[in-house]
């Protein structure tokens, strides 16, 4: 199975962990296409998402001198296994590429002619999207099977942004869906759809997200393996036109979602005690 990984930045931990984990499981990518590390739009978005302090800490963790005796800490602690190599930790996509021998192409736009031409040259069976721009039809049509994505909620119930938070507030079970990307927002055919059962152990919303992202990478690898041997086939979403797109959640509602998460933990603890 020829696989290409699409990343939002060479420093994207999700991108690095996905490529590293694929390689560990014997599906080393034929190449990776990434947006530049200083893509202005991404930078502005990350500043908005994380705030100045967290963004600065993250930048320092990535850009500080490489040769230290202690391994670098990952932002997502559940990526440790995927990103650890001996005493070192992969700091960026280039590190992973060197270790596993695949090329990395940097492009300012994943939908650009350059990006499409590179994909055509690699002629992949499958592409894995780990972040970046909204993908357009010309790019989506290049891989033989399509482009897959890991979505942090059960589809088709919760589409769009802040999906774990919306799942909690709407009373939809937490879960991860691996699906093909089509022209809509999270409306493509589904490959794998699994409930996430570890919510009770999560100390915070960030912890929940981190665990779900790591779980999503495992599901993506499972889907790739199953597609390679032909034991899985995509199932179109039944209610494609339903208005179940969700958007970035305001912090006042996020507080309520966190409340729900804590209740799940408390309920599990009291059940255990009983």
């Amino acid at each position, binding site marked *: 199975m020829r696989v290409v990984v699409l990343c939002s930045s060479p420093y994207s931990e999700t991108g690095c962990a996905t490529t590293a984990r694929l390689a560990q499981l014997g599906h080393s990518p034929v190449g990776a296409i990434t947006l530049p590390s200083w893509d202005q739009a991404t930078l502005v978005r990350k500043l908005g998402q994380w705030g100045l302090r967290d963004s600065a800490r993250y930048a320092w963790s990535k850009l500080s001198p490489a040769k230290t005796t202690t391994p670098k800490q990952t932002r997502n602690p559940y990526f440790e296994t995927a990103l650890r190599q001996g005493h070192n930790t992969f700091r960026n996509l280039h590190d992973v590429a060197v270790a596993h021998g695949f090329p990395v192409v940097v492009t300012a736009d994943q939908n650009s002619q350059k990006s499409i031409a590179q994909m055509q040259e690699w002629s992949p069976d499958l592409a894995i999207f780990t972040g970046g721009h909204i993908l357009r039809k010309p790019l989506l049509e290049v891989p033989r099977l399509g482009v897959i994505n890991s979505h942090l909620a059960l589809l088709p119930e919760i589409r769009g*942004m802040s999906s774990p938070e919306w799942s909690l507030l*709407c009373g939809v079970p937490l879960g991860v869906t691996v699906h093909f990307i089509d022209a809509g927002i999270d409306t493509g055919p589904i490959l794998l759809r699994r409930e996430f059962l570890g919510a009770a152990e999560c100390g915070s919303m960030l912890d929940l997200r981190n665990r779900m992202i790591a779980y999503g990478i495992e599901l993506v690898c499972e889907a790739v393996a199953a597609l390679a041997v032909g034991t899985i086939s995509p199932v179109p979403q039944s209610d494609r036109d339903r208005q179940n797109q969700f*958007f*970035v959640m305001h*912090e006042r*509602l996020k507080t*309520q979602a966190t409340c729900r998460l804590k209740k799940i933990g408390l309920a599990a603890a009291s059940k255990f005690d009983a």
Partner: protein
Amino acid sequence: MSNFFNRDPRAATDRTSKALTEGAGLLRGPHRIFPLLLKLTSDGLRRQFQQQHLYSYANTTRPTADALRSLIRWILNAQRPDGGIAAFYSLLSGYSPSYPEVTGYIIPTLYDFAHLTDDESALHAAERATRWLLSLQMASGAFPSGLHTREETPSVFNTGQILQGLVRAYAETKDADILARATAAGDWLTKIQQPDGSWSGPAAYQEVAHTYYSMVSWALVLLSEIARDHRYAMAADKNIDWALTRAKSGGWIDGINLRGYPNFLHFIAYVIQGVLECGILRRRSDVIQAASKPAWLLLRRFEITKRLLGTYEPDFSSGRDFTCLTGNAQMACVWSRLFEATGDLRYLNAALKMNEMLKQLLQVRGRRGVVGGLAGSDPIWGAYQPLRYISWGCKFFADALMLEERLTRFVEASECAS
């Protein structure tokens, strides 16, 4: 609102002369030049450097209570000696005279604020405003159009908007005279209603029917409840049924019908708001559904692009690139009420973010008339009420913030209880 400002549809010269008159205000008050230049510069710079992204407006940047207090302070400052509220504060000519229509529907906002914060000054302002409005009522029961002292022709829209204030004033004071005046206004409205449910003719703006008169229907439903007279609700139902015959399959409700002017978001939001409130009060799911279609469409646009355009062509196909802040505040109210009606938290989420966006545009510093106020447009030179801070913008934003406080408390309380 603001029929006055769009008074003559045919003459561009009229608009030019108004602009010149307002511009002449700068000669009478040269001290206004500095705030004007400051605002022009700051809006220009902000537009140049502002970067919106997926996570814009998802965090609280200014406490809601603080923003609400500043808006109400702006409204109280705009109350004229006669008791009416000025339509606007112009950066060129200062405060306008009292405007009956706006004064009417600001009354419920003042009462809501007074109850929320035990603020006596808002209570007194509401009472003064009511007394002033009663002094303007015509023998027919109607209220006049335009700014005070300008016109003595009856106006359907102004009567409806003032009726909202009178109904609330009666609910608060139980003054029989106020109820009698309110029913006189309601009787006049039902009397001149067309057989198809619309209002047209000499008392309608440009003498044609408008779907944004759904706001008049909302006032009639409120009157019907307080006067316990079903006739007013029937008249409102009839008007809403007529308005919904203008609804297109894509959600657009046609019939704003302002000849010579674009469809400002303010008027689009009026249509939706009036229809929705009638649907909620009359418990008509078909009407709520009709209002939710365009509201959802605008919600998606706001969530995806983080802004709404200042005007829209029919079917929301395109529009002009500026922000009609009043329309945005109205949409925050609409989304909040849709959350109440449907329980769909995405509406509340969008309202919270819209409120954040508007909070960031409230003037924190400046002279009286500017500080705490909401401008007509962003940037200030945008096509809707350029170079003005407008009282109805402050009113709708204050309503939106009070809804936010009430609904988030409700969500938090139900979360704790569950």
